[in-house]
């Protein structure tokens, strides 16, 4: 299992596809988090089931 350092290495400088969900964590929230690890969103959507 990767530790935190390894995951950070995986995220830094990476292109991120974000699949958020309104009833969970929405994409804008995930994007805000990824900015702190220098990952670049290339596709972002928030699923919404009503």
């Amino acid at each position, binding site marked *: 299992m990767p530790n935190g350092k390894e995951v950070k290495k995986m995220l830094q400088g990476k292109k991120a596809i974000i699949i958020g969900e309104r009833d969970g964590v929405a994409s804008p929230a995930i994007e805000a988090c990824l900015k*702190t690890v220098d990952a670049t969103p290339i596709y972002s959507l928030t699923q919404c089931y009503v």
Partner: protein
Amino acid sequence: MDLEDQGLLKRVIDENGTDNVVVILGSPDEESARVYAETVTSGDPSWAGPLAGVSLRLPVYHILEKEMRDEIDPAIYEEHVAMMEMVLDTEEITRAVREVREKGSDLG
């Protein structure tokens, strides 16, 4: 994932390739997390959409996984994610995504 979103995602991958790409989920439960994770690793499990049979093998994580939480700026995480972490079944969700990710890495 609906068919339109699968098509858009496929187009993004066609344009960017799979190198240096990771997928981050925000699904609210174990079932939806597993479906999305499978869609971006081994292909659409419902075999209905453009990603049916398409093994993208993308590394997939859920934003609630401890390893990710530990690396994100704590203030930003607290502001945007922490509340949902308390509400959702984090253990089941992250277990499902980890299982699919590890299985996906064995695909070849």
